[in-house]
């Protein structure tokens, strides 16, 4: 018996094992959504993994406020609020008739518990800073909560919209990692570890009920496998599709629609601002002028991405386009290096695993070489990167995407990995925190953007695109990604 005969026999056996062909269905009410990473657990208040929010945000858990698909902050569990004149007191009026998935009622107690837990001493909330200004949370009556801040914070309602600020119940909070109980339109169904998480529609939901009965999140990390899973129909939508090289093929296929939008991911070439010769602004400016953003976008991201000139999302109304300030000019780069008195420069370039970093890093190295700067590339896995670059600050250059919304505030942090913490910039941020007037806030945000561009803290490369693929009959998917989420509440199948 030769090999091909036996293989034929085996596949014939497999056929005999039973193969169901999917019957054609009208207006399905279930969906299978592909995700690259599996969440480590399902508690958004106890870890930073984006995959947690990609499953639970808006689906299982809700906060006082939430982001809508445009990134706007809108009421959620708080139906309205009053802000005192001095900007220190927020009185939230809560929605009526809200229940947790275990049937217990939601009220002001739960809000107080959740906020106090997140800001408490033993809190393991990854975004604890969101709650830093809260001085006191008081229960006025079961439907009203008064939050007092120690100092005004114009971003407070924005902060409360994050996945890390969702409201949990005291009775179930400790088990949310494996059995999340929230107030959203979907409740947790089942989790086959390593394969999928099922959510089902919550019948007693307080708001507009979801149109789908069942949502399955499937975890597929390999780009080739992701491609095959969509082609084979195992996955109906893949909102963050990991293989941009295949998107054109999907675009040409009428069965699928390709959804390209923007994320909150500012992708930067970060520089160690305290490590000579990078402590010299001329050297940092030289590196900026040596980089051609568009060719990185074309080469590493297959053309998907928007060039940025500062650490700010271009879709934000307060964005200032400062790309010209550090435009591609290798001759100027060499001149700046000469002025700085630097020659024979060799810098370390440490790259984390995502393809924007690995592929982008290679192109950046080639561009820097053109300008006379040598680089030594080291590929690191995430945990190593966090240790060497982020914690020990043992690096010259690295490529990384900062994916949190409106995170320009990291430039004010002492001891942050790129080591900027400029007093003038910190002052702008303090002023921003004290300001609630929208126009004044925009002005300050723009001043902050200009300040870090003037100081050439990092090279701001591009805004990471959200590239998704979905069955053409699915409606209601988010185009942009104002926060890391797969909001399933508005999704339905066309007949």
């Amino acid at each position, binding site marked *: 018996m030769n090999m091909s005969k036996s293989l034929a026999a085996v596949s014939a056996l497999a056929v005999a094992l039973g193969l169901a062909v999917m019957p054609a269905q009208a207006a399905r009410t279930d969906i299978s959504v592909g995700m690259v990473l599996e969440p480590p657990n399902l508690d958004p208040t106890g870890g930073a993994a984006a995959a947690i929010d990609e499953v639970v945000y808006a689906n299982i858990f809700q906060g006082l406020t939430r982001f809508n698909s445009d990134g706007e902050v809108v009421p959620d569990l708080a139906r309205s609020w009053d802000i005192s004149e001095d900007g220190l007191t927020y009185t939230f009026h809560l929605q009526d008739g809200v229940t947790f998935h275990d049937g217990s009622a939601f009220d002001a107690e739960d809000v107080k518990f959740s906020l106090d837990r997140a800001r408490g001493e033993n809190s393991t909330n*990854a975004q604890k800073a969101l709650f830093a200004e809260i001085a006191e949370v008081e229960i006025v009556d079961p439907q009203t909560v008064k939050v007092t801040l120690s100092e005004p914070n114009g971003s407070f309602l924005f902060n409360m919209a994050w996945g890390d600020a969702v409201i949990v119940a005291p009775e179930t909070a400790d088990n949310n990692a*494996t059995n999340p109980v929230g107030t959203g339109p979907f409740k947790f169904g089942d989790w086959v570890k390593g394969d999928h998480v099922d959510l089902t529609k919550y019948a007693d939901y307080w708001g507009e009920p979801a149109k789908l009965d069942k949502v399955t999140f499937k975890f597929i990390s390999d780009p080739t496998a992701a491609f095959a899973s969509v082609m084979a129909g195992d996955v109906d939508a893949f909102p963050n599709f990991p293989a941009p090289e295949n998107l054109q093929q999907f675009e040409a296929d009428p069965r699928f629609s390709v959804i390209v939008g923007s994320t909150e991911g500012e992708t930067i070439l970060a520089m160690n601002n305290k490590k000579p010769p990078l402590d010299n602004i001329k050297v940092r400016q030289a590196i900026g002028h040596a980089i051609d953003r568009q060719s990185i976008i074309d080469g590493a991201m297959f053309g998907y991405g928007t060039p940025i000139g500062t650490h700010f999302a271009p879709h934000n109304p307060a964005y200032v386009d400062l790309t010209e300030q550090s435009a591609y000019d290798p001759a100027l780069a060499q001149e700046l290096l000469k002025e700085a008195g630097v020659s024979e420069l060799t810098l370390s370039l440490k790259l984390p695993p995502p393809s924007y970093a690995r592929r982008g890093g290679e192109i950046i190295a080639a561009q820097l070489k053109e300008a006379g700067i040598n680089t030594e590339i080291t590929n690191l896995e995430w945990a190593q990167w966090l240790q060497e670059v982020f914690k020990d600050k043992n690096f010259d250059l690295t490529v990384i995407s900062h994916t949190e919304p409106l995170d320009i505030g990291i430039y004010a942090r002492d001891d942050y990995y790129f080591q900027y913490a400029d007093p003038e910039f910190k002052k702008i941020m303090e002023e921003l925190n004290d300001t609630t007037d929208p126009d004044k806030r925009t002005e300050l945000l723009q001043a902050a953007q200009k300040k870090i561009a003037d100081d050439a803290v990092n090279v701001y490369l591009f805004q990471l695109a959200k590239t998704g693929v979905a069955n053409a009959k699915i409606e209601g998917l988010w185009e942009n990604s104002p926060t890391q989420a797969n909001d399933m509440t508005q999704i339905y199948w066309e007949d």
Partner: protein
Amino acid sequence: MTLYLLRRLLALMLTLIAASIVVFLVTEIIPGDPASFMMGINADPQAVAALRSELGLDQPLVTRYLAWVIGMVQGDFGLSYTYKVPVSELVGDRILISLPLTLYALLLSTLIAFPAGVVAAARRNTAADFAVIGATQLGVAIPNFWFAMLLVLAFAVNLQWFSAGGFPGWDAGFLEAMKALTLPAIALALPQASILARVMRSSLLDTLDEDFVRTARAKGLTRSQTLWRHALRNALIPVLTIVGLQFSFLLAGGIIIENVFYLPGLGRLVFQAITQRDLIVVRSVIILLVFAVVAVTFLVDIAYAVADPRLRRRAR
């Protein structure tokens, strides 16, 4: 035989203790902190410190080693840092995929390799022999992940007979689950079957040249009678060795195939745990695998004795 068993058992214990120390130290040395990994780059340093003490990472080295070993002796493998569920539960889930997949692949591989090897040896230097040699050469040379992708393209993307991957869980029914494991098992089995067939063939050829085979022929047995009654059983020892090695290899080594078919198996669990610095999972799974390998080697030793009476006598 009892003394032999006791000696093997002692060796097994010592191997496990040595392995536990090596595994613990190696995972301790690799750079990267589980708490920082979980909290990400926007995290508050205070919250990271709180998590470190919650996970017990601020305890001294020896204390943590002893706590881990004592826990394992009592059947408690610890709590996964990232998944926050007992490691035994995680491993249990994965074993339910990896073990059936391994057995399925091993079964396919033996079903292909035995007849192929026997036919090739019995019809030495004929067209059938050359066909087996050629096909197995190809089977060894083709990378199994590439073959797996071809299977996906043909049977999942084009014909849509199978899912491109994933595992519905045993709750979905036996046939559904086996169906999900079929393409991966074929992909895993092909190179193993090729190796096995080649070993079967050469081992059988060696035995067919032995004096006792000539004697058997001389006393009037036909060629096939000699082959089945005398040669085959004697040729099995090297084949059994290979099957034992393949079992250990397939149990955790199928990670590439698990990735292609996004199957939640043991290999992927270890890989994921390493990248997430879920050290407790890494350690416990590796110790379990060491245990499995040692145990399989032990079983293979016993199988030798069954296949070859001379070994049985020597062991006594």
